[in-house]
């Protein structure tokens, strides 16, 4: 695993070493340059300091000359008349002034001067200068070599101290129960950690909301499931006690109603749970609204005639396509339709319509029922909410399912009074489907 501390140490020590060695080279070159100038001056001075008539007698006078300097003097007849080192000699070079030559596997710096027709040649090995420059550089860099380990230790300590709160957070989280979604303390944290902790707290808050919504749902569902089961159990016990066949038959008919109600509730609960947990149900599916409306209205023709409610459809644009899952949208439309049927008295009418307004595809269900009072319109999409005085059959989940599916399709639902003034009109406006963008 990557460790911030280890990474920091590696990079910092690498960086410091690189910087130190570059500085060392720079100092070395600078020092060598300065040493060159200095030694050249020294060579020149040595030449100048030689007596006017150099001869063998002068040799002894110049004994204190530095050993690494070789002085040679030739007379005009090219005869070596003086050398500071009898054991060793360089040939005579012709060019006057400073020059660098290679002889005896060594680089030499020469200064040659022609004085009173004698040739004075002062030589010094370059290695002398390099050694001096190197020792200068090493001396300047010595503190750095002490600094590197000190810095590394310091870095290790700082990193450990800065990351200590992280360890604290890890321990706090480790001790927590899975249901404890309280925010982590974000006081006195380094800036970088505070950002993470705040993001984490934000996420915990959203998770808490989602979980409490889930808990509410389970509590609601448990409560709502008990009612049809109670009705079922009571009716079962009543039917068991029936004294006549007629009573028994009536009891069985009621048992059927109650079982159907329980089944319907369970189905609606499952539908809702499925659509709430679905993540990306829309995908790239498309649905033709016209076809859907025709299909569903023929499915419900029998229900309509049984309830003596007129079911009409208007599909002026049969080829309106929306982005959406056909199965989900079928559930949406069925729930809208069932809601309309449940609230429309016999002799009333339910109207299904697909239209397009300013490019927005709209699915519209209008009934001639009791409508929804304005103050309840915000709440009808809540699970299990029923309008006060609403005795129509139903689970209280239909519109919650509709809202869920609409949200997944980024569709907007609006509730209005029916244009006739009697009943409710529900419109679902879908985002326009751009064919070119999806081919």
């Amino acid at each position: 695993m990557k460790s911030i501390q280890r990474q920091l140490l590696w990079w910092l020590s690498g960086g410091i070493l690189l910087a130190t060695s570059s500085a060392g080279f720079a100092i070395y070159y600078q020092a060598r340059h300065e040493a060159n100038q200095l030694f050249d001056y020294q060579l020149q001075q040595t030449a100048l300091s030689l007596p006017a008539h150099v001869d063998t007698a002068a040799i002894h006078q110049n004994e204190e000359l530095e050993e690494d300097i070789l002085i040679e003097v030739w007379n005009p007849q090219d005869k070596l008349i003086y050398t500071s080192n009898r054991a060793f000699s360089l040939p005579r070079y012709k060019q006057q002034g400073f020059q660098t030559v290679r002889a005896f596997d060594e680089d030499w710096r020469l200064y040659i001067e022609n004085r009173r027709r004698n040739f004075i040649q002062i030589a010094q090995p370059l290695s002398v200068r390099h050694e001096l420059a190197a020792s200068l550089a090493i001396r300047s860099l010595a503190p750095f070599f002490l600094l590197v380990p000190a810095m590394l230790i310091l870095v290790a300590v700082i990193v450990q101290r800065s990351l200590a709160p992280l360890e604290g957070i890890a321990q706090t989280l480790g001790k927590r129960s899975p249901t404890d979604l309280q925010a982590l303390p974000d006081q006195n944290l380094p800036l970088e950690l505070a950002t993470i902790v705040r993001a984490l707290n934000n996420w915990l808050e959203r998770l808490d909301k989602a979980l409490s919504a889930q808990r509410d749902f389970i509590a609601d569902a448990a409560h709502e499931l008990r009612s049809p089961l109670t009705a079922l159990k009571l009716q079962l016990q009543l039917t068991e006690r029936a004294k006549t066949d007629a009573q028994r038959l009536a009891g069985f008919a009621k048992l059927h109603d109650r079982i159907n109600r329980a089944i319907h509730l369970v189905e609606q609960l499952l539908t809702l749970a499925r659509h709430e947990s679905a993540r990306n149900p829309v995908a790239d599916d498309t649905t033709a609204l016209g076809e859907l409306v025709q299909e569903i209205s023929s499915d419900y023709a029998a229900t309509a005639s049984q309830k003596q409610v007129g079911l009409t459809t208007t599909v002026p644009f049969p080829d309106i396509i929306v982005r959406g899952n056909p199965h989900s949208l079928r559930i949406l439309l069925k729930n809208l339709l069932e809601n309309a049927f449940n609230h429309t008295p016999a002799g009333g009418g339910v109207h299904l319509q697909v239209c397009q307004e300013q490019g927005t595809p709209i699915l519209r269900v209008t009934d001639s029922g009791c409508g929804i009072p304005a103050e309840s319109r915000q709440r009808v999409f809540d699970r299990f909410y029923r309008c006060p005085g609403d005795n129509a059959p139903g689970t209280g989940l239909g519109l919650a399912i509709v809202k869920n599916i609409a949200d997944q399709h980024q569709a907007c639902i609006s509730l209005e009074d029916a244009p006739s003034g009697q009943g409710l009109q529900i419109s679902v406006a879908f985002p326009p489907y751009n064919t070119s963008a999806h081919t």
Partner: protein
Amino acid sequence: MRLLLVEDDPMIGESLEESLHNENYAVDWVRDGHSAELALEHDLYDLVLLDLGLPGKQGLEVLTAYRKRKGPAAVLILTARDAPSDRVKGLDSGADDYLIKPFDLDELLARIRALLRRKSGRIQTELSSAGLVLNPATHEAVFRGQPLHLSAREFGLLQVLLETPGEVVSRARLEEKLYGWNEEIESNTVEVYIHMLRKKLGTDFIKNVRGVGYKVAASPA
């Protein structure tokens, strides 16, 4: 015995009403909190079966208000809320018992009998006076050691009279206890039942106090 059923679920209400009728109780069924308050204004009921989640006014509010003005009926809460805190709240608001849905019909009926017994200050499960013994649980009647066949109404009428032996019960009171709202009462039905009972029990068993009502003797068997 007259019961008020407060239940908003039509299916539960329907089945409960039928079950209670079968047990010879007079039952009035209301479906919301406000109607329950209206019904409770008159002191007609021996027992109230109260659902908590009601439209209009919540069951607990109805109960609290009823107990505040010293409503005497026994109250049995029937609810889907099963948390212990809900039960405590229900009982502390003045309920006599608490039953969680879905419940067993037999248990409900037994609890109703127990509450009615307790309310009338009886310890025995059977009602008895002047040689007549009534068992509300089994609907069996024994008169002077012999099993007696009684119709549901006859049984109900005797039950009301035997709750308070020796006391005079008015005709109007008897009608209230025997009939729910939606049952037609013919002007002389109580007299008809009294007449039939006198045939079975002898003319002296139920005494007619002219202009006041009827009573049975308080003497023990």
